[in-house]
């Protein structure tokens, strides 16, 4: 295995990511917002920590694009606009959609889960770029930052709700359990 071969495989992975994203069709943006809100609402009700979802979640429409955000665009510390977990962790995310036909496609997203203070890993961030990088090995189009901004590991294409599943049912549960 050479670096060149690794880069070629990474390019092929990016191509597959592109295809999968093209095939991934979601509902129109206002319905996706509704679904995300309903999802977070149900998770909130299973928690002790209160989050005011009506105020936290917002959508901005610009032509065929829609931007759904929760929390700050750049995480620089806890704010009331974050979604706060019982473990002390917090979440912010942004999802960019493009309306296509009677539905929408995912253009890009970022889900930033910050662990509670005192953990060896500070954060995990799931990112989807809107296009390929010149070096797909270093920066796959769909990737996970394992607590380091400069490090990116490939992450398979997920429906935006499925990423929330990983956050709530894997990350948060593990974090809670290890307190």
């Amino acid at each position: 295995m050479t670096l060149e071969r690794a880069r070629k495989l990474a390019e092929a992975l990016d191509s597959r990511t592109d295809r999968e994203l093209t095939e991934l069709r979601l509902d129109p943006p206002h319905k996706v917002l509704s679904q995300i809100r309903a999802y977070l609402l149900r998770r909130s009700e299973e928690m002790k920590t209160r989050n005011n979802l009506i105020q936290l979640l917002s959508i901005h429409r610009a032509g065929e694009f829609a931007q759904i955000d929760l929390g700050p665009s750049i995480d620089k510390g806890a704010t009331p606009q974050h979604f706060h977990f019982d473990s002390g962790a917090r979440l912010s995310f942004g999802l960019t959609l493009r309306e296509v036909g009677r539905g929408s496609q995912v253009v890009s997203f970022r889900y930033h889960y910050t662990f509670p203070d005192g953990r060896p890993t500070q954060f995990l961030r799931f990112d989807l770029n809107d296009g390929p990088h010149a070096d797909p090995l270093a920066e796959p189009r769909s990737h996970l930052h394992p607590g380091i901004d400069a490090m990116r590991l490939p992450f398979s294409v997920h429906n935006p709700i499925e990423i929330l599943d990983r956050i709530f049912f894997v990350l948060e549960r593990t974090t809670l359990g290890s307190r």
Partner: protein
Amino acid sequence: MPEFSTQPLFDIARRLEIRGETGWLAVLAPVTDSTTNLDRLQTELQSILQKPARVIELEPSTFEELREALHQPDDDAVILSSGTGLTQEKWRSLDIMRSALERKGPVILWLATGDVANLTEHAPYIRSFIGASIFLAGPDGGIMTEAERQERLNELSQHFGFTGDEAVRKAQARELPHEPELVEWLVLLGRGDLL
């Protein structure tokens, strides 16, 4: 004119959900954009209740048509729309057949503003089922305000160290990286065309 509580459609769906996805309530349609709001209500019901939500026009449905429609299936959410308003006779007729309209799933009356009086006056049995659950359809929330948008733009500009105009120029020159924060920046600037 007595005012009813204004509720976001999202909260109206929540109310039905905590009831155990059953029961009746009435929503007064806004004067403008009634069709859009009806569609939004349907969306919220589907998202929150996790079951299909249908709209049935009360006029010109007959007794048989309504009874069949409400029971096939009988456990999804049904929005009964009174359109621009029903006649007194139609309300009386609906009231008489209330038992035939009873079902497992929730029933939401989507009413023109003037129909509340008709409901109380000519359909006391249906009104009795609704009780205090009469709400004005309010704004659904979630729309990013201009202040919030500006706050995000400032935040992004401070983080990346250049202005929005420079971000646009870089995007035009294909020099802007593909990171999601930068994608968001362009969308918030109204320049999704550069993606």
